[in-house]
Every structure is written in structure tokens, then in C-alpha cells.
């Protein structure tokens, strides 16, 4: 209870609390947003998320059609179904946005992320790190006598799992690209 005697999480006190108390399931969705590659467009998309209080778990962007100057922004976001619908509608009405796809609901999709993972260690630890890397099909892209940089692609979960395993083996640094995703099939 706050000083104003408002029960935590209660919706009755607030016209601003728009969420249906019965549908508080938080879902993760991967959105593909095709935008005109003009200056300021990414800022507009990110500003929409920060300005309206939406989550961004991951965001990647690159021009994918050089002739048409189109970029593809892949956003992994979280929210109740209502919030997810709002996010899509809000993205859709931005002037430079051409298309919004919810890959999570539009059918099966593939999601991949690339990560570089630096692990430092000696002896048994080093060998164990290398062994696990093989299992995860991570490549060694840099090595010294005391460190490796592994490169791996996979789902974010796979990268999380690998990084977690590396932690006791001398994990130093992780760089991740964020998720790129495409729907399966044609």
C-alpha cells in the first residue's frame, strides 16, 4: 500500500492503468519492421518505444535493399497481448514505416544471433572451454596462450546457455548482435 492507500497492482484507482487485470500474460514477440532508410528513422522507432514505455529486449538494423533504400529493423519486445497489438499499431502508423510483421504470430520463423565471447583461463579450464565450444559449434576466431574469442550463432537462448557455461571457465566479455529473424518457407 502506498501513502495514498492504493493497493499495489490495483487498476481501479487509475485511468492510466489500461491493462486488463485478467490478461497479464507477458509474451515475447519478434517484430520485423521494414522502413525507409532515411536519417532519423531509427530514432523515431526507438523514441516510440521509450516514449510509450515499451520494452526492447533486442534490436538490430541494417539496410537490406540498397536500391530501394529499405532497412529491416528486427525488434524483440515483451508485453501483454494488448500492449503487443498497440506496439504494432503504433509502429505501423509511423510515416517512414512500410511494413510491420509479427514473426511470432505469422507462422514459424528462424531467429539467429551472432555473439563473440572472450574466455580467459589456463590448464583444465581452457581445455574444458574449448570442448564445450565444440559442442556448441562455436568457432575460435582469436586465441592467445591465455584466452580465446569464440564466435557463435544461434538463438538467443543458445547463446545465453553457452555464456552461462563459460562463466566459471573465465568468461571475460560478451558482444552480441541482437536477433535477426525471418519467417520459414515462402
Amino acid at each position: 500500500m502506498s501513502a495514498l492507500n492504493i493497493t499495489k497492482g490495483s487498476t481501479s484507482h487509475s485511468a492510466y492503468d489500461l491493462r486488463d487485470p485478467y490478461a497479464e500474460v507477458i509474451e515475447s514477440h519478434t517484430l520485423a519492421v521494414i522502413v525507409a532508410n532515411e536519417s532519423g528513422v531509427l530514432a523515431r522507432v526507438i523514441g516510440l518505444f521509450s516514449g510509450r514505455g515499451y520494452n526492447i529486449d533486442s534490436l538490430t538494423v541494417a539496410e537490406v535493399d540498397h536500391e530501394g533504400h529499405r532497412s529491416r529493423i528486427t525488434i524483440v519486445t515483451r508485453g501483454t497481448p494488448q500492449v503487443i497489438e498497440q506496439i504494432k499499431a503504433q509502429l505501423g502508423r509511423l510515416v517512414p514505416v512500410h511494413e510491420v510483421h509479427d514473426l511470432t504470430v505469422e507462422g514459424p520463423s528462424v531467429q539467429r544471433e551472432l555473439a563473440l565471447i572472450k574466455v580467459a583461463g589456463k590448464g583444465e579450464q581452457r581445455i574444458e572451454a574449448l570442448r564445450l565450444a565444440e559442442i556448441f559449434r562455436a568457432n575460435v576466431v582469436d586465441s592467445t596462450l591465455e584466452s580465446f574469442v569464440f564466435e557463435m550463432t544461434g538463438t538467443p537462448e543458445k547463446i545465453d546457455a553457452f555464456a552461462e557455461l563459460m562463466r566459471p571457465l573465465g568468461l571475460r566479455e560478451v558482444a552480441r548482435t541482437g536477433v535477426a529473424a525471418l519467417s520459414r518457407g515462402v
Partner: protein
Amino acid sequence: MTKANAGTMSGAKMIVKALKDQGVEVVFGYPGGAVLPIYDEIFLQNDIRHVLVRHEQGAIHMAEGYARSTGKPGVALVTSGPGATNAVTGLTDALLDSIPLVVLSGQVPTFMIGTDGFQEADTVGITRPCTKMNWLVRDTERLAETIHTAFHVATSGRPGPVLIDIPKDVQFATADYVAKEKVKASHYQPRVKGDIDQITRLVELLEKAERPIFYTGGGVVNSGPAASQLLRELVDATGFPITSTLMGLGSYPASGQNWLGMLGMHGLYEANLAMHGCDLMINIGARFDDRITGRVADFSPHSVKAHIDIDPSSINKVIRVDVPIIGDVGHVLEDLLRVWKSRGRKVNKDGLAKWWKQIAEWKAVNCLDFKNSDKTIKPQYALQRLEALTKGMDRYITTEVGQHQMWAAQFLGFEAPNRWMTSGGLGTMGYGLPASIGVQIAHPEALVINVAGEASWLMNMQEMGTAMQFRAPVKQFILNNERLGMVRQWQELLHGERYSHSWSESLPDFVKLAEAFGCKGIKCSDPKDLDDAIMEMIRYDGPVIFDCLVEKHENCFPMIPSGKPHNEMLLGEAETQGVIKAGGAVLV
């Protein structure tokens, strides 16, 4: 040497030409270093009129008043840095109220961008969240095209403000002019036709509803006069009651048979209770704003809801609806009427008769009743007299923000759209005076009155200079309660009558102020003199500042306190003791 093409011109010339080609007649602006080349071009021509404001915020609100009263986009021109930052409040206001504006700002030359140059500001960065779209034009070749696209974006779909930031070197450099017709069609083409299956579903609901209500908003006004016409036809043909938000007043005439008055926080008892008790709610171009819904969980609990809106993001944003129809109000209403007629114009007559009987009982409460006085002017009385004395005239009303605004919405009647300009979404004190000038510039012969509060009015009073210079005979009707009345009312109801900084002290003598500006000042404090004073204001050929000294502690009722549902509305003084629980105090 290349032969100069006939279409080759400087960026500055291009700007003026593009505005002309877009049919722009008036630009509201203020010069400065970064827009001097454009001002040079303005100097050299006579087609576009430039109205020199006194503050850039004034320019934007004038452009808003111009736009809202004509249906055309408003255009403003400001310099870089402080010129652009002064425009921010107006841009945000226009964004929230969906007003089409094209704002041009000067910028430091491209080679200086990022160096903290004199009067440099990241204008596109600052205005990104308060524009529908904005552009920094780095190349004169793209300038004309960008301006044409800007007009398309500002006026298509849900209208809104756009800004074009133009570095000074881009204004000087030359390039080929791109004609409006040559610009390749923008991919931005919001859908205007509604889904016919959803429209048919709505017709089926219309035919059966026992307690239907039309809940209309600014979208009807924005859709254009045809939409208002169709709305009238639909309302009259079905016999359903209709209410409107603050933004939608006038699309259905206040004198119309089925009119329940405005709804919302200070809306009419009958309108709010009808919203609460209806079984079919048809939202046409409104957005379930929190001033309308009150406590969301208890909003119209037993109704099936349909929502017609051109902006898909308005649908299911606040209130979940059963029949969403994405499209332009005019187009959707046309289809709706056609389908309904083709199916035999059915309505539930028995249900409707009972419903109107119930509504009549609510109306009998006479919620706008107030205790009049023969000693002090009650603000409600002042507006009743203003209404009586100006009804039927070619009249436009603007307002500031506060109690007076709500009373104006309650006590003035609007028979046509585009006659009422008020800051709804942002609630911008200081909107009304410049907006009234913008309206007057667009309608030189009309009677334009700004119903103001003394505190709001002071926020942009410098624009009286603009009114004088451009012979805009705007009437500033100030309901002077020497209070930040709306703040005072909330403090009384929600903060234990602790009136922290909510009174207007050291007010100017408004009559002397009027004289200082060279216009007419009128002061009135006795109800007996009011009619004559109002007539004097109307008859005076020029701007007037009318200081109407009103009751200082009047509260605006009805009121749905924040966090309360519609059926827990306050009607008058007696009911206000301790009714707002602490929870309501966190809301604005």
C-alpha cells in the same frame, strides 16, 4: 558553362514557390539569421501573406487556429535554435489534437551542424516526438520534393504537424524545382475505406440496440464538412442520442433534437449517464481519452462498443472494442448509411422510446444549473449572455485552458464544425489568443471571440501586438476570477483547501493594457451592465480586451473526479465534501 534551366532556383525561392503551389495563402512567422534568405524571397513577392508574430509559440497556435477553422493546413516559419524550441509547445499541441501544420525552421549551415554553432539546436531531434514526421533537408535538390511530401503527410490519414528543418546553405544553393505533380507518390497512404463486413456488423447492432449512443470526436471535424453532414443524416434518421467530446463540438448542431451535450470530466449529466448505461456505443472519430472514460474498469460496463477511427493505434488502445472499423469517418459513414438503408432502415423503436424516456429523466436534473447572483457576475451567466447576444452571428470561438474553457464548452452552442478551437489534448494555457488571431486572419469578416481566463491569457498576451498590426479585430473575453481557477478547484476538492499558488496577483489593469496596445479595453463587474458591455465589444471595429470580473470561487460542475466512473458524478457544491478519495489525487 551549363545553361541555367528555367526551373533552377535558390532553395529559398523554391520554398516560397512550393508553398504557393500548395495553395498556401498565409504564413505565420518570425525571422532570424537562419531564415533570412527565405525572408528575402517573401519580401520579393505578394502572393503569400506573412503575419509577423511576437513569439514563435504564437505563430504555431495561430497556424492551428487557421487550420482548424478552414480545414486547410496551417503554415509557420521560424528561425533556428530558440525560434525552433519556442515552437515545441505548439507542435505538441497540434500533435495531440491532430491539427495539420507544416512548420519550416531555419538551421545553421550543413557544414556547421554538430559544432554547437550560434543558434544551433538539434531541431529534428527535439521535435521528433512532437511531430507526425520531420525532415532535415541537407540538399537543395531534395527541398521542393520534401515540402510537397510534408503537405501530403500533414493532411493525410490522421492529420498532424510536420516540420522541415532547412540549413541556411541549402536555402542559398540552387537546384531544379520539382513540381508538386512530379513528386512520386508517397508510400504513406492511410486507408480511408472501412471494412464492409465490420460496417455490416455495426448495422446489425444498430438495428437491434435498445439503448444506443453516438459518441463523436474531433475525427468527424477532421474528416471534413461532408462527414458532419453524414453524421447529421445518420443521427436524424436513426433517432439515436448523440454526445461529443470537447474536440468534436459542432459536428452535430447543439440545437439538434438528439443532442445530449458534451461528455467527459465536465460533461453533461445526461451525456455521461447515457454513456454509462448504453447497450451500444458507437465511437466516431474519438479516442477514449482519460477525460472521457474516467475509471477505465467501470467505463460503460454493459455496452457493445464500435469504434470508427482512421488511426489503427487508437483502436483497443484504452478500451477494448467489439467492432473496430479503421477508416475515414466520412467514407465509413457513407457506407454505413447505405447498408443500413438498403436493409430497410430498421431501428428498435420500443427500446429507443424507453431510452429517450430515461434520458429525459436525466435531463430533468438540469445539471448546468447554477446559483445566479445580481451582485457579481457568475462566469456561467457571462457565457449565457455571450451566447444569447452572439447566437446566429458568423461566430468563431477559441478558448484558453481552465474553468472558463469548460464553461464555454457547456454554455455555448455550436451549430457547425470548425467554429470551436480549443486545446483539448495538451491543455495549453496561452493557446486561445494566438489561435483567435489565426482564425480571424482566415475569416476577416467573422466575429472571433477568445473566451479566456486571466492567467492563461497572460501567457501569450504579446500577440495583441500582432492583432493590432494585422487588423485582426479579435475579442478577448476574459473571465477574470483572479484565480488559476481550475487549479484552485482541484485544491479545494483534492488537497484540503490548501490554495498553494493558485491565485493571480499583480494582475495588469486590462483596460490600460488594451490602451497600451492601442486597442479597446472594457471592464465589467456588474451583471446589470453585462449585456451592454458585450454589445459594445461586438460592435467595436478592432481588437478588444474585455475584463469581465467574475465570481472568484465558482466551481465547474458537473465533474467526474479523476479515478471515478461516470455514474459517480458530482453535481454541485453540496456534494463535493470528501468525495474524492486519496487515490484520485494521483491523477491529473
